[in-house]
């Protein structure tokens, strides 16, 4: 009897905004003194209220777009209720029924991995267990987290690692996170079960594995767990549905203390935060920002390749001659009065949109930096 692993990943990405998710505390908390970066809101003091960070929303949507997700026009926050000392309000503000991004995918060398959703939520504080009890540092409480959930499409440990590495590369490229696993910028959880090779349906159980903080351990944990589950199933027994923690010292997954009843999070819509309604124009600006970034990136790697450089050299040189490019930039400005107005009103995103249009008109040949400079000087 052969078994095929069925693996899904949940990745939490700390966003690199300037301030926290629901308050104006600084988001730069690395190596700060305990409890030195908090306020009534992220400390959960009585009477405090949350106000969402627009940049965290934008960064999450950029991530979703780059993963070919649909962006929900209507989205809102919800409360996930449970008790834990590092969760100051006794609930986490997260998203439930209408996340920011849904139904995307990422290609790997072993095939496409479908992405169920990317949503936005707040991080908890940090707890350190000592003999006398637990020490709590709330600096991390309220840090914005983008949570990415895949479908259980991952087939083995190599693909899982490749997927995570690509995500890390992506968040760095998009400049939405440092993606540093040692600093906790990116945290991995996986769901793993085995199905029989001749069985098309999904297994009727899932084991959740937590506490994986490196790609090396991701690979080892998956391989250990596949072996562990294989042993149980081949004996004709059932694998227990549970949460297990990766122990990097013993290199094993260990059962976490089971609770008598399933945690009932009692999700309900967050009454303190009005829902969000995104316009098509806003989505277009995001899309163009992404295009501009991707084209700029492609351009740089093209320049690294000597042969393509030679071939395109003459045309690029011509286009980067200021007169040619200036004509194109001027026509883009003429044809797009609304983004021009927005940029003049201070919306930087509108400039990205215009750069994207210039790139399109030049089939990606223009230098985005020069285009940006021209746009700025014409629109002064």
């Amino acid at each position, binding site marked *: 009897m052969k078994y095929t692993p069925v693996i899904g990943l949940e990745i939490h990405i700390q966003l690199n905004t300037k301030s926290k998710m629901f308050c104006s505390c600084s988001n730069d908390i690395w190596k700060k003194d305990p*409890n030195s970066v908090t306020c009534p809101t992220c*400390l959960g003091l009585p009477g405090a209220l949350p106000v969402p960070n627009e940049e965290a929303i934008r960064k999450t949507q950029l991530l979703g777009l780059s993963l070919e997700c649909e962006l929900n026009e209507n989205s809102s926050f919800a409360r996930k209720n449970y008790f834990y000392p590092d969760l100051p309000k006794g609930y986490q503000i997260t998203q439930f029924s209408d996340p920011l991004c849904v139904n995307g995918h990422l290609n790997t060398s072993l095939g496409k991995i479908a992405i169920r959703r990317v949503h936005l939520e707040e991080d908890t504080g940090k707890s350190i267990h000592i003999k006398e009890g637990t020490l709590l540092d709330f600096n991390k409480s309220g840090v914005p987290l983008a949570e990415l959930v895949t479908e259980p499409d991952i087939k083995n440990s190599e693909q899982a690692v490749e997927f995570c590495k690509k995500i890390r590369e992506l968040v760095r490229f998009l400049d939405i996170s440092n993606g540093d696993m040692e600093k906790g910028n990116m945290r991995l959880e996986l769901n793993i079960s085995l199905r029989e090779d001749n069985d098309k349906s999904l297994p009727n159980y899932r084991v959740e594995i937590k506490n994986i903080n490196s790609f090396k351990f991701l690979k080892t944990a998956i391989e250990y767990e596949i072996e562990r589950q294989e042993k149980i199933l081949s004996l004709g027994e059932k694998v227990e549905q549970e949460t297990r*923690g990766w122990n990097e010292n013993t290199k094993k997954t260990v059962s976490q203390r089971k609770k008598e009843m399933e945690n009932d999070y009692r999700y309900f*819509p967050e009454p303190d935060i009005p829902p969000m309604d995104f316009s098509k124009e806003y989505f277009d600006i995001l899309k163009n920002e992404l295009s501009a970034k991707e084209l700029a990136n492609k351009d740089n790697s093209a320049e690294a390749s000597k042969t393509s450089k030679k071939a395109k050299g003459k045309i690029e040189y011509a286009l980067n001659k200021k007169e040619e490019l200036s004509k194109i930039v001027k026509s883009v400005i003429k044809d797009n009065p609304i983004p021009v107005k927005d940029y003049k009103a201070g919306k930087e995103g509108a400039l990205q949109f215009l750069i994207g249009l210039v790139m399109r008109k030049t089939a990606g040949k223009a230098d985005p930096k020069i285009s940006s400079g021209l746009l700025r000087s014409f629109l002064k």
Partner: protein
Amino acid sequence: MLTRKEVEKIAALSKIPLSERELSSFSVQLPKIISFVENLNKLDTKNIFPTYQISGKKNELRKDLSIESLPIEDILRNAENSKDNYIMTKGVLDAK
């Protein structure tokens, strides 16, 4: 009808420690209150949209700017236990 066992479960989920006396009296009171609110079952609301917020507001977002945080003395002042600027809670905890 809400049984005593269910009341116990709800109290545990709500993290409300109950004495025997309280468990007994709440096991009598809570079902009565639930019956009282079940008056709503008389209404057919199949095609009605729920109202979660009455402000009618949308998109109240904050610019990504940071300001000074609270001084550490203010954080620790009301905590029952603290140690080296950490807030401390005693007792053993289940892993999350």
